[in-house]
């Protein structure tokens, strides 16, 4: 009769607890117990004597549930009260293992079996995909509602991103600006996720997701101006290239440190929730970032504070030279969600349609249920970490070539839109050439623009200039006047 498993708790407890439960494992983990606490007292150690009676073995109880009123009441009644009320003593009943454990740290039932949870599940978490490597829908795949206009817009953006990366990378190599890194192999994660979001959603990127800004309307000129650090750069020339950001487009300006944006995204989402905005926050990061303390803090805060946050991990296999085997021994990132009570999914990061669907659904969950979602997008970092890196030192060229040529996400999506009759060789040629000329034009224009004025060195440290900075600016101008040849001439004074 009175089995007191998860269902009982789920029904009888508060909505908060119900959510937590349904959000975590399908059944709570039982707690091993050998001595009966009611008999031996709170600290029922065998050494303390004869009253410690071994609990009986009646097999696994975790799957047995009952949802009778009686069981509900039982679970809520303290043991002492139960005895007083004349209910039968349960110490040696079949249901001993099922008694609800009321420690504050975990709501579960007892088990006599000492079972350690295995370090990994029997099977790795499957990866959600809709299109195969050749851009063909998988059998039984339920494709999203996507019309020609949206599909070709996504494709065009991916091509633009790919083209910008290729040309900017070369430009950096030629010394036109100081640094660059590409999104090669991760164009789908960039653009498909951006397409599934709403412009009101606040996006905290790392540094390999310029496609979100691109989708939202950051122009090729905006990108080029930032990389050149000229007067038109929204960041006023202060940060390294690729450190984009736009208030207008709801993308806070990114920084270089890894994973710092993750707890910030949770705070932002809390703010959005409290002001009842129909928006979520989105945080992008790589596999390496999942090792940082900020990642764990962010997931925990998001779960506890029930924030509408979508965490999108680009698990691309490499953190500079560090392979994922040196980064974590779990089944990737996706399983970490459950550890924090967060609903999670693993997606093929090179499948535009699967990503679009997963992010769209995650957004719905985040906003409608006010809870975080974790998406692990499996991909491959086709480019070097950055222009400061030569990845041939730590991975095989053939491996890179394979992913570049055979597994390219842009090409995969192209095949699908071609099969829909929405794209052909002619449109391909046109978009490629258009993308190329627009990147080159933007770059040339950016290179000709002036640098930001010198005063920008001192402004924005605070909302207004404190006296120490005012004084330092005067000192600097004084020394420049004395030694004009000692300073760059392309920065207007």
């Amino acid at each position, binding site marked *: 009769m009175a089995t007191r498993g998860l269902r009982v708790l789920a029904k009888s407890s508060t909505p908060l607890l119900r959510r937590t439960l349904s959000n975590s494992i399908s059944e709570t983990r039982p707690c091993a117990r050998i001595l009966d606490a009611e008999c031996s007292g709170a600290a029922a150690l065998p050494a303390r004597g004869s009253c410690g009676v071994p609990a009986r073995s009646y097999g696994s109880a975790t799957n047995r549930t009952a949802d009778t009123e009686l069981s509900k009441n039982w679970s809520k009644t303290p043991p002492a009260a139960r005895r007083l009320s004349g209910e039968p003593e349960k110490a040696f009943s079949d249901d001993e293992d099922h008694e609800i454990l009321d420690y504050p740290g975990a709501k579960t039932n007892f088990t006599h079996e000492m079972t350690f949870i295995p370090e990994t599940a029997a099977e790795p978490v499957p990866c959600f995909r809709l299109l195969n490597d050749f851009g063909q829908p998988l059998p039984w795949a339920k494709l999203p509602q996507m019309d020609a206009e949206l599909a070709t817009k996504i494709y065009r953006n991916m091509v633009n991103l790919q083209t910008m990366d290729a040309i900017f990378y070369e430009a950096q190599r030629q010394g036109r600006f100081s640094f660059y890194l590409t999104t090669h192999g991760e164009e789908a994660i960039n653009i498909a996720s951006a397409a599934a979001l709403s412009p009101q959603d606040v996006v905290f990127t790392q540094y390999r997701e310029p496609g979100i800004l691109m989708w939202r309307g950051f122009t090729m000129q905006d990108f080029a101006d930032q990389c050149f650090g000229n007067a038109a750069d929204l960041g006023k020339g202060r940060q390294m290239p690729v450190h984009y950001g736009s208030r207008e487009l709801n993308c806070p300006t990114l920084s270089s440190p890894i994973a710092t944006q993750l707890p910030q995204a949770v705070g932002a989402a809390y703010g959005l929730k409290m002001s009842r905005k129909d928006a979520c926050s989105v945080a992008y990061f790589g596999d390496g970032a999942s090792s940082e303390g900020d990642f764990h803090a962010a997931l925990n805060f998001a779960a506890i504070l029930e924030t509408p946050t979508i965490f999108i991990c680009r698990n691309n296999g490499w953190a500079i*030279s560090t392979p994922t085997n*040196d980064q974590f021994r779990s089944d990737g990132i996706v399983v970490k969600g459950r550890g924090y009570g967060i609903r999670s999914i693993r997606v093929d990061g090179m499948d535009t349609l699967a990503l679009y669907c997963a992010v769209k659904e995650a957004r719905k969950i985040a906003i409608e249920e006010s809870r975080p979602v974790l998406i692990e997008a499996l991909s491959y970092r086709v480019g070097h970490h950055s222009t400061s890196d030569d990845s041939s030192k730590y991975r095989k060229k053939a491996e890179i070539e394979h992913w570049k040529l055979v597994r390219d996400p842009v090409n995969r999506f192209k095949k699908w839109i071609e099969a829909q009759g929405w794209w052909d060789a002619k449109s391909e040629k046109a978009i490629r050439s258009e993308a190329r000329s627009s990147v080159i034009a933007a770059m040339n224009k950016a290179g000709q623009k002036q640098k930001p004025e010198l005063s920008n060195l001192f402004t924005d440290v605070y909302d207004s200039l404190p006296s120490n900075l005012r004084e330092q600016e005067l000192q600097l101008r004084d020394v420049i006047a004395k030694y004009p040849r000692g300073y*760059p001439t392309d920065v207007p004074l």
Partner: protein
Amino acid sequence: MRISITRALSILQRCARDCPQQQHSSPSVGNSTLSGAVRLLSSQALATSKEPEAGNVPKKSLNLFSAINQALHIALETDPRSYIFGEDVNFGGVFRCTTNLADTFGKHRVFNTPLCEQGIVGFAIGLAAMDNRAIAEIQFADYIYPAFDQIVNEAAKFRYRSGNQFNCGGLTIRAPYGAVGHGGHYHSQSPESFFCHVPGIKVVIPRSPAQAKGLLLSSIRDPNPVVFFEPKWLYRQSVEDVPEGDYMLPLSKAEVMREGTDITLVGWGAQLSVMEQACIDASKEGISCELIDLRTLIPWDRETVEASVNKTGRLLVSHEAPVTGGFGAEISASIVERCFLRLEAPVARVCGYDTPFPLVFEPFYMPTKNKILDAIKTSVSY
């Protein structure tokens, strides 16, 4: 003086050559008989010297990252209980300082860690507390802050809080610091002053390959936790003759790089080469500058600086970090306390401005040669 240096270095090298067993049998950090003896010898010899290099010591022209690589190689070779780890260390590190070390000493002694600075330092403290030498790499000093808690609350207080029952003296944290020409906010910072405010750790910054090798070996073998900042701008740029063997340079001992009579200049790391240029320019105008490399920032060698200021009557301190709360402020205050009546001009500080490190404006932000020269002239004509 040169003879004594030569003798010290040759004794030291003989020890390293002849006594490998003894070295390997003395893993106890801080009390290692050999390394203690080696350090004492080199301290005595070099305390009064200007340069580590001497007549017959075999030397090789090396850049900074190769000198550091050599020091790490020696550290691993001379102590089987030494370990090197950090992000991307396995393939040689992003600045190539750990090149070939994993291949030579195995992946159990030289290894990648997950991308987590607090994890790296916390792990290193625990490893060091078990009488090992833990040489941890933080990829950029700009990324050391997640480990701040471990350094400040744990490493620095490990000995004190246990009544000296425990220590993590075998800990050395290496991190590239400073400007590099295009690093912007997060690849340029000089965070040394944060750590100089923490009793219990030492902060060491070398200026050149030969200095780096000797100071790093001392830091690794010192019985206290050391934060060792490497001037990344110099990794490839700075090249000099470096003694090939195992040698150490004393910690907490400043070095007078250039003697002078009119003004004392104090600095450390990459900034010294800028200051040296200013000294040369000043000498053309008849001003004689004494240049001191502090080398160890805490505990620092006040006596050497004090003696110099008592001679010159003027002091200028220069560093890349923002002027407010920088370590220059501490030096300035200490010297004013000790040499008040001897000072003939206010102590000058030529430092970074109180702004984040900027990309495009880097040449303006930096404490450049002409800013230093200007301050020298102002001080001398005060």
